[in-house]
C-alpha cells in the first residue's frame, strides 16, 4: 500500500514538475483548454439564465374553454364535472360569467363593459391536464371545440411553447458544442502528451532499464493530462466569473429599464467544480489516448 501511494505521489510530482519546467507552454495549453471550455459553458450559463428569466412564462398544460353566451350555468358546470372524470384532466375550475365580470372590474377594466346592456362575458372552464405534450393538448382542445355549447377554446401557451422549443434547440446546440470542444480539449491534451513522450524517450528508456513497469511510465503522463485539464477547467470558471462580473451592471440596467429585477447568475460552486472535474476528466482521456497510441515508444527498451 505504501508503495502504491509512493508511486502515485511520485507520478503527481513528476507531472507537476513537467508543468513547472515549461511554464509558457503549460500556460498556453491551459488557456487554449480554458477557451474551449468557456464557450459552451458560457452558452449554458446564458441559457440557464434565460430559463430562469422566462420561468413564469413556461408552457402550462392549461386550456381555457369559453361557452356560448346562451349556455346555462348548470350545463357549463355539468360539462366541467364530466371533464373532471377524464383521466387526462388534472383539474377543472369553473368561472361563471358574473365572477368573470367582477374580476374584470377588479382589474380596473370595468369601463369596457359599463355601457353594454348586459354582461357580455361567457361562462368558462380552466382545465389543467396531466400531460403537457403539445399534441395531447391539441387533441383535447379539438374535442372540446366540437361540443355545441363551446364557443372557443384557447390554448394560451403557444408563444411560451415556441420559447420552450427555442430553449430546447439551444440546449441541443450547447451539448453539440460541448461535445465538439470536449473532443478538442482531449485532442489538445493528447497531442501535448504525445510530444512529451517523444521528448522523454531517453528518460523512459533509462526507467525501463532500471525496472520501471508500464504503469510507472504511463502514470505521470496521465496525471499531467488530468492536471492540465483541471487547470483549464478552473481557468474557464474564472473567465466566466470575470465575464459575468463585467456584464452584471449592464444587464441589471437593461432589466431595470423593463421593470425587472433580473440579475445574471453565475456558476454555483457545485457547477464550477463539476466544470473543472469534467475538464480534468477530458484531459485524462486525451492522455490515455496519447499513451495508448505511443505505446511502442514507452516500450523502447
Amino acid at each position: 500500500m505504501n508503495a502504491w501511494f509512493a508511486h502515485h505521489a511520485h507520478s503527481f510530482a513528476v507531472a507537476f514538475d513537467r508543468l513547472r519546467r515549461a511554464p509558457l507552454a503549460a500556460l498556453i495549453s491551459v488557456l487554449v483548454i480554458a477557451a474551449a471550455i468557456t464557450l459552451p459553458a458560457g452558452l449554458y450559463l446564458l441559457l440557464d439564465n434565460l430559463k430562469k428569466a422566462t420561468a413564469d412564462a413556461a408552457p402550462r398544460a392549461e386550456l381555457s374553454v369559453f361557452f356560448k353566451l346562451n349556455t346555462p350555468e348548470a350545463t357549463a358546470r355539468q360539462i366541467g364535472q364530466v371533464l373532471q372524470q377524464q383521466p387526462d384532466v388534472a383539474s377543472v375550475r369553473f368561472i361563471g360569467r358574473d365572477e368573470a365580470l367582477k374580476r374584470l372590474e377588479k382589474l380596473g377594466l370595468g369601463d369596457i363593459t359599463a355601457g353594454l346592456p348586459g354582461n357580455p362575458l361567457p361562462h368558462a372552464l380552466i382545465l389543467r391536464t396531466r400531460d403537457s405534450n403539445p399534441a395531447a393538448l391539441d387533441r383535447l382542445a379539438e374535442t372540446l371545440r366540437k361540443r355545441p355549447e363551446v364557443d372557443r377554446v384557447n390554448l394560451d401557451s403557444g408563444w411560451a411553447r415556441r420559447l420552450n422549443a427555442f430553449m430546447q434547440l439551444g440546449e441541443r446546440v450547447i451539448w453539440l458544442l460541448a461535445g465538439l470542444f470536449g473532443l478538442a480539449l482531449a485532442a489538445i491534451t493528447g497531442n501535448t502528451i504525445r510530444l512529451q513522450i517523444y521528448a522523454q524517450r531517453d528518460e523512459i528508456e533509462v526507467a525501463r532499464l532500471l525496472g520501471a513497469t508500464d504503469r510507472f511510465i504511463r502514470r505521470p503522463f496521465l496525471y499531467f493530462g488530468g492536471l492540465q485539464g483541471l487547470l483549464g477547467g478552473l481557468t474557464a470558471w474564472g473567465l466566466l466569473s470575470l465575464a459575468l462580473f463585467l456584464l452584471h451592471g449592464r444587464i441589471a440596467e437593461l432589466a431595470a429599464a423593463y421593470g425587472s429585477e433580473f440579475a445574471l447568475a453565475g456558476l454555483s460552486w457545485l457547477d464550477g467544480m463539476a466544470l473543472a472535474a469534467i475538464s480534468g476528466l477530458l484531459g485524462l482521456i486525451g492522455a490515455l489516448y496519447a499513451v495508448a497510441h505511443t505505446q511502442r515508444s514507452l516500450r523502447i527498451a
Partner: protein
Amino acid sequence: MIELNDVTKRYPGGHEALSHVSLGIAKGEMVFVNGRSGAGKSTLLKLIAATERPTSGSVVVFGQNIGRMRRTGLPYFRRNLGLVFQDHKLLYDRSVFDNVLLPLQIQGLTGHEAGKRVRAALDKAGLTGKERARPITLSGGEQQRLCIARAIVGRPQLLLADEPTANLDETYAGEIMAMFHALNQVGVTLIISTHDQSQAQRYGGRAIHLAEGKLL
C-alpha cells in the same frame, strides 16, 4: 546463478552476435568478458539483463529462463540487477541525488529510508557533497561513479557493467575498478565487459574471451 546453454543471438538482417555460447557464472563471482569491438560482449550482457532475448538456447538468471519470461515480469526481474553503461545513461535534467533516487522510486521506496540509501550509495561512489549538482557538471569519472551509485542503490545481487572504463583515463578507470572490487568483496556478483585483458589479472576475477560471437 547464471546459466547460458548453447545461446545464439541473431539480429534482424542476419548478423549473428553470439554463436552457440554456453557459460555458467556462480554467485559472488567477478567475471571479465574480454573481446574486441563487435565480439558480442554487449549482446551477452543484454541477454543476461533481459533487454534482448536469445534466438536459440536458454539464458537462466536467478533460476528464471529469460526467453520464456513474460513481458510483464521483466521490470521486476530487472530490479534485482544493477546496470552500468559505457554512456552512463544519466538523466541530465535531474540532480545527482535524483538520478540515484530513481531506482528506489521505481521500487516504490521514498522518504527517509530512500534518502538514507541514496546518501550511502553516493558515499560509496565518492560523490558526497555533490547531491545537488547536475550530472553535466561532473567529470567523466564522476559521471561513471554516479552511474555505479545508481546501480548499487537498489542493493542488487548482480551488477552488469558494459565497458565501464572505456572512455576514462587510467586514474578514473582505476577508481571505478577499485569500486567494483570492493562491491565484489561484499558478495555482489559482477560481470564486466572490457577490452582491457589485464583487468582480470589485476583485480583477481575470472576472464572469459569472446571473438566474433564465439566463446574461446
